[in-house]
């Protein structure tokens, strides 16, 4: 998929590009609004990651512009301005999602994937983890025909780990994904540990769950099948 990264902070743009390339995206960079509007006019993109804080351009105008030439593109706004209205205005203009800086790269990826699934009507296939089956569509975890009774938070946590299978997710990344930014000041790595502990207890009462790994000093990971 083609992604245009519109971001005036060059080192951030290149980091995002490096990360997305590793995930098999084709990345194009624009460091100014003018550059971005030229590229949007010539090329076709699946995604435009748009920083609203461009020095030469109102980022929101770019969305309007792109609607004409790149009607298929999805927009994800990334901004450090932190304005409450920006989010509303952006989403009203047809942006597909909004991410406040600083964000986890893995979170950006999962937002891109979520938008893509919505856009192409992709159905998340069920995921098999040994004896467990995660039915992503119906938000259920089944073990040998029985549903595992999970709280909403526990399910969200497990699904985020499952969707990013094979990657280590830090407690902070997990926390931000589940609780968002509003409770930022209350961040406590213990939160995630407690939820994982409860989750494991529930899983193990049905069947062993060695696939849910603790990566010492870093975070958690769901291992990929051999």
């Amino acid at each position: 998929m083609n992604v245009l990264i519109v971001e005036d902070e060059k080192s951030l743009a290149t980091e995002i590009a490096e990360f997305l390339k590793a995930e098999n995206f084709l990345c194009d960079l624009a460091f100014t609004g003018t550059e971005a509007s030229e590229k949007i006019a010539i090329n076709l993109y699946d995604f435009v990651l748009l920083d609203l804080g461009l020095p030469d351009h109102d980022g929101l105008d770019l969305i309007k512009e792109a609607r004409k030439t790149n009607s298929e593109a999805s927009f994800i706004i990334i901004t450090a301005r932190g304005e409450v209205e920006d989010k509303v205005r952006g989403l009203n203009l047809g942006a597909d999602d909004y991410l406040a800086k600083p964000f986890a790269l893995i979170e950006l990826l999962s937002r891109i994937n979520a938008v893509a699934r919505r856009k192409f009507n992709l159905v998340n296939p069920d995921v098999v983890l040994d004896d467990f089956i995660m039915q992503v569509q119906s938000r259920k975890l089944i073990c040998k025909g029985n549903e595992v009774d999970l709280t909403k938070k526990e399910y969200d946590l497990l699904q985020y780990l499952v969707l990013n299978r094979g990657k280590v997710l830090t407690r902070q990344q997990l926390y931000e994904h589940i609780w968002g930014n509003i409770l930022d000041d209350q961040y406590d790595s213990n939160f995630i540990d407690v939820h994982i502990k409860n989750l494991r207890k529930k899983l193990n009462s049905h069947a062993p769950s060695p696939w849910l790994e603790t990566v010492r000093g870093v975070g958690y990971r769901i291992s990929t099948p051999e």
Partner: protein
Amino acid sequence: MRLKIKLSLFNLLSKLVFTAIFLLLMPFIIERINLRQVDHDLIDKREQVISLISEIGIEPFITSDSSDTFGSYNILKEEFISLERISPGEEINYIEVTSRLIEGEEIDYRILSYSFEADGQTYLLEVGKSLQSIVHTGKNIRQVMLVFLVFIILITFVSDYQYTRLLLRPMDKIKNKLNRISDPSLFDMSPVKTTTSDFVRLDKALRELMSHINELFQKEKEITVNISHELLTPVSVLRSKLENVLLREDLDREVEAKIEESLKTLHRLQSLVNSLLLIARIESHQYLREDSFSLNEILREIIIEISPMAEDGGIMIEEELTDDFHIRKANRSLIFSMFYNVVNNAVKNTPPNGEVLIKSVRQPNMINVEISDTGKGMTEGQKNTLFSRFKMKNKDSSEGTGIGLAIAKTIADFHNIEVSVSSEPGKGTKFSFIFPGNS
């Protein structure tokens, strides 16, 4: 009391007072007017009689051989004229009220007495008029006046009230404009239509004040936007770089741990910046207070959120949510944050087997939410710095910014919620949130 009612009542009262004075004075006035009229009549009659006598002489009335007096009165004895021969003496000419006995009936008369000479003799002419008719006229006039005045008062009261209402309508509009909004930025800047210059000036002054306040908020907002951008962009760059490094598969365990440590530290910085920006944004009114929601619903959500943590620490969360309250004109996610921060703080500061109690109680004219714990409590000194932004409550903790309670206080102030804390070292702490009555 509303201004228009006050004005109308004052008008009514002043009219009533004037009417009462007028009605009290009226008998005198009427009497004076009547007496003057009667006196005029009497003098007219006297002139007629005198001119009659000078024309036809005194003979037809009084002859020298017959009686000395002549008297004439009409059948209802309302008027009389009498002539009497008197011995010469002082000239008589006066009008007075006297009782006269006529055919065994005593009647009050206004009598004009006048002496004159005719044919060498002195005569006394008396012309009288009964006062009975005067009293009747006075009564009639009074009754008519009373009915008339009551009618006038009613009519003017209604018209006064209506006119005052019309006159004060622009003020009602200005008042409504102020009442409707929860924030200066929502103030309707279109001028109120009126020809009353006072209201025009009031409206203008208000609009100027509001746009001044909005300008100040706007400036503050721009500052927070700039600070936000300047501080969070470098954090964002660092974070992405470190995360990318962490994704490398050839990483040494030791290096991996170091990078994870750096990410944690970076996250503390990010949290602190975000927290301070949150406070700045609340204080510069960048959040709207437009939501309506149930208070107990929020408290229950928070209990569900925090329960796993509390259970893990062996702490009971008890709820006594007896009355439910509907909060209006507030920001739901901020109120959620406020209670979340306080409940979370209570859970963190309570030892195992302790208890955190969340209560909502209706009190006359206000809503009170209490969050109490059986934790270690605070000294007076700790209590005083509880809500300050840069005092770390828990120095051992490497996580959290210790700014949660300062945020809670800022949110409370933004919503005019009164927060009070009572605490006893070793026994526990109690936070009370008193919502204003109109919430």
